[in-house]
């Protein structure tokens, strides 16, 4: 880091814009994350509202994924990762002893960067979550859940004739929609998406973006993306991260047309990132 950049970084103490919302689903307060000695997230406070898509953007390595994975405790499995601060879901603290991580992940689902269907049939991919959580009482109910999840993920018409084919036989975009169907099959309250379209072609991407917009009716969604256009298209609010700090949060429109912070402006206008 050059001296000037270091000064600018040290000068980042307060996030610009309103980090809280009136109707929060999840709230993160003063979150710090360390990988062993190395700090990856510095004092981030951010709310995720109900029926809203919040986009997280920023140069790669700035800690977007790390922050997102705190929201359903996926970081637990990385032994060196230490999270401090307070994160709540509907007011319940995520890292308290009363919160079971297995239960939490049923309520806060996740879609990953690379489509990762199970080595099972399309049907079993979607049915897996409901099965382990005991959401269906019988086969007919399970069938219903699978069908409606595939419908909501916009995949049903394409796969209805081959539900027993392996999930891995689908195209990349279809696989990602299958992963979304699999996530919504357990009826989560929040869906986290970590660059869900980065491995897809433009047409598949457009399809998923449409889907995200539809899902907003029922879920709170937090999406990490490296594409500013995508953030502009799908989100209502946008959060800009820089080197582990949350620089600016605001209405998506405002962020992209009239950013307040210099770093945000540099990033939006393509001066780095």
């Amino acid at each position: 880091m050059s001296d000037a950049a270091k000064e600018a970084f040290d000068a980042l103490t307060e996030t610009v814009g309103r980090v809280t919302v009136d109707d929060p689903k999840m709230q993160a307060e003063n979150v710090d994350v360390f990988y062993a000695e190395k700090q990856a997230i510095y004092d981030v406070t951010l709310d995720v509202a109900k029926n809203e898509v919040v986009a997280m953007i920023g140069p790669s390595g700035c800690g977007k994924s790390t922050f997102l994975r705190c929201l359903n405790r996926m970081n637990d499995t990385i032994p060196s990762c230490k999270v401090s601060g307070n994160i709540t879901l509907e007011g319940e603290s995520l890292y308290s002893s009363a919160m079971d991580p297995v239960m939490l992940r049923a309520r806060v689902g996740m879609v990953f960067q690379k489509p990762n269907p199970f080595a099972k049939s399309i049907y079993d991919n979607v049915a897996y979550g409901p099965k382990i959580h005991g959401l269906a009482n019988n086969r007919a109910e399970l069938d219903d859940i699978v069908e409606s999840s595939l419908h909501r993920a916009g995949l049903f018409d394409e796969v209805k004739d081959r539900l027993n084919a392996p999930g891995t036989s689908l195209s990349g975009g279809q696989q990602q929609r299958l992963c979304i169907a699999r996530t919504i099959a357990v009826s989560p309250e929040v869906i986290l998406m970590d660059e869900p379209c980065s491995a897809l072609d433009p047409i598949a991407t457009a399809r998923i973006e449409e889907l995200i917009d539809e899902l907003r009716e029922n879920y709170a969604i937090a999406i990490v993306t490296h594409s500013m256009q995508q953030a502009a298209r799908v989100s209502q609010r946008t959060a800009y991260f820089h080197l582990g700090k949350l620089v600016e949060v605001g209405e998506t429109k405002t962020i992209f047309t009239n950013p307040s912070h210099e770093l945000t402006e540099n990033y939006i206008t393509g001066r780095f990132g």
Partner: protein
Amino acid sequence: MSDETTQRVRATLKKRYLKEKLFRGFGITAIAASLGFLVILLGSIIYKGMPAFQATYLKVDITLNEDTLGVGGTVSDAEMQGANFSGAIKSAMRDRFPDVKKRKAKKNLYALVSSGAEYALAEYMINNREQFGQTVSLWLLADDEADALIKRNKDLSKPIRRGEFKNDSSALVTRLNKDQLGWLQSFKDAGDTDVRISSTFFTNGNSREPEQAGIRAALVGSAYTLLITFALSFPIAVAAAIYLEEFAPQNRWTDLVEVNINNLAAVPSIVFGLLGLAVFINYLQLPRSAPVVGGVVLSLMTLPTIIISSRAALKAVPPSIREAARGLGASPVQVVTHHVLPLAMPGILTGTIIGLAQALGETAPLLMIGMVAFIVDIPGSVTDPSTVLPVQVFLWADAPERAFTERTSAAIMVLLAFLIVMNLAAVLLRKKFERRW
């Protein structure tokens, strides 16, 4: 590209292609050589071993009555079993060659028939009671030396390679003497010799008489031993691998365990035999020569192999699958049992079969725990004294009789067949698991 660079590239091309040709040549030569050796090895084993599946029989007219057998025709089966069948055979042989008078010559005459013939005869008598009192023509198993000459269709009029004929390459190598060869020739002339496919090799245990020695006891012993080895090492090794790979924290202790597992894989197998002798036999007082002890000792040897290959198989499962399952709320155990283990199964099975194949061919540790015994009876349980195929090969290879040489090769064939069956099973299992993508 400019003309000059094209020229330069072209100049190097020839050299590159030459290198490629050379390399391919080396590869093909190496494969041809190894295939050649394999063919020679298998060919010689099969050529030497095939006669073990045949046996020579001599036709003899035997009188079965109270005079020759010493019992009446209506006695119980048990009593009939104990009747003097060897006497009956001897008198039948004397009747066939009435000129033989001297005690020693008679003994040589009797030696043409296997000592096992009397048991076959006893069984025949019990099953054909109505023939008591009659003289019947029966095929009796020949002695191994006679068998070897007849089976290979040797010219019995050739001199015997001893003394003055020591350097005569066409002379017969046999322990029979001139008289015995003459008698054998007379059987042959009368058409009273027959070479038949024989299952004796597969149905009998070991015997001092090579023509009666079989592989059955060793085969059953090997099967029991492997069963114990599999039953112990597979679950323990897979559980250990899963724990180390999926659950154990990364610290100095697990590093130490890992290093030691790798070291164990390199420990000479005889050390495990010594350990087995000291711990299981001397201290725990488990039976000597038993497959249960052999199986435990071999599991110690197989464990590291299976653990290492299972860990590699688990490591090869993409982390994204674990993340996907965890992200849906699967518990750590569910992640492993529902997703990781099924995907790793083909690799785990391959490692297991490799480990078991090693165990199947292992001799040294089993010698230490007394599985080198002379086993006649087919073991009925894992605690009965038994031996295993490679030890049987080792024992027979040491015996001077020629019939044991062919049995050695035949036993190797059986061992190889066992291995092939195991590998086939592995391939089938892999196919079955892989079909679940």
